[in-house]
């Protein structure tokens, strides 16, 4: 399905990013596993991918650092010959009530979660324009659509990602570069494990399917958007949230 394609997955060492990296690899793509700090986990993902019979390497880069990202893209093209799929997944949280949120907490989250998407998108666009093909899939969040108390920074960044997705989709459509966002809801990962029981129960009561999503539920949608089956979809935000926000 993705045989011979090359994918970069930012924040690919853990959680949803790890599942996405593995899912793309299962379908034949070579994968670059970008990570910020979890080197051992990134290495484990690379080894798991290599067992699937495709190529992979890990690359440490801060997604908001243009020089590091450019280097990652260059090494990707030098190693695998193309960049066909970019999954902008890297993200952090610094939750706090608006009244308590420090400016630094706001800036950090915007920097990684929003500016990082801009930097990585810009870095692969040159190659994808030359190829006259490419898929960019941005991992937003359902809270970027609905809002969420305690996450002003994260929600602002994710809503920004949805807007960035639409603009990028319009700018690059004539070059056959398709750009979509996904908006996961409550998915079982390290990030949601940090929530309190009260927060979890509150969210579960809002989910029609009445259960958490699994990282694989998200990864399969990304695989679809990266494939030829999604040739006529661009600029969209696909909710993967058990029906939480309709």
């Amino acid at each position, binding site marked *: 399905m993705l045989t011979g394609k090359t994918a970069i997955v930012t924040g690919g060492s853990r959680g949803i990013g790890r599942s996405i990296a593995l899912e793309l690899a299962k379908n034949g793509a070579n994968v670059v596993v970008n990570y910020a700090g979890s080197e051992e986990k990134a290495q484990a993902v690379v080894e798991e991918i290599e067992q699937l019979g495709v190529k992979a390497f890990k690359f440490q880069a801060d997604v908001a650092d243009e020089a590091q990202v450019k280097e990652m893209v260059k090494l990707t093209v030098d190693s695998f010959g193309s960049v066909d799929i970019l999954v902008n997944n890297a993200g952090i949280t610094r939750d706090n009530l608006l009244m308590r949120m420090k400016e630094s907490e706001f800036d950090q989250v915007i920097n990684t979660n929003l500016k990082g998407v801009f930097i990585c998108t810009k870095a692969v666009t*040159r190659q994808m324009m*030359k190829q006259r093909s490419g898929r960019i899939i941005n991992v937003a969040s359902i809270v970027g659509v609905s809002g969420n108390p305690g996450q002003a920074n994260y929600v602002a960044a994710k809503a920004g990602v949805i807007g960035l997705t639409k603009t990028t989709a319009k*700018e690059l459509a004539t070059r056959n570069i398709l750009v979509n966002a996904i908006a996961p809801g409550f998915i079982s990962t390290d990030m949601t494990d940090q929530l309190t029981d009260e927060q979890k129960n509150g969210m579960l009561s809002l989910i029609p399917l009445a259960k958490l999503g699994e990282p694989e539920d998200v990864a399969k949608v990304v695989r679809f958007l990266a494939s030829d089956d999604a040739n006529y979809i661009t600029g969209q935000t696909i909710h993967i949230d058990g029906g939480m926000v309709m």
Partner: protein
Amino acid sequence: MADVFDRVKEIIIDKLDVEESKVTMEASFKDDLEADSLDVVELVMELEDEFDMEIADEEAEKINTVGDAVNYINNLQG
């Protein structure tokens, strides 16, 4: 001089799919050669590859005509 112009012209003909006779030093990419802004960005990328150089964004924004591009490259190589 002619050499740079010819190489630039070839890229323009290929990328913008225009008649050779339209590609003069005075021709404006947007007005005469019907390039949109993304086409111009792409042309600059092609020129960077062809002439093995980097054109800074501020400089690239000043390139409006075929002559602008040719002169820029000639100055760099001069």
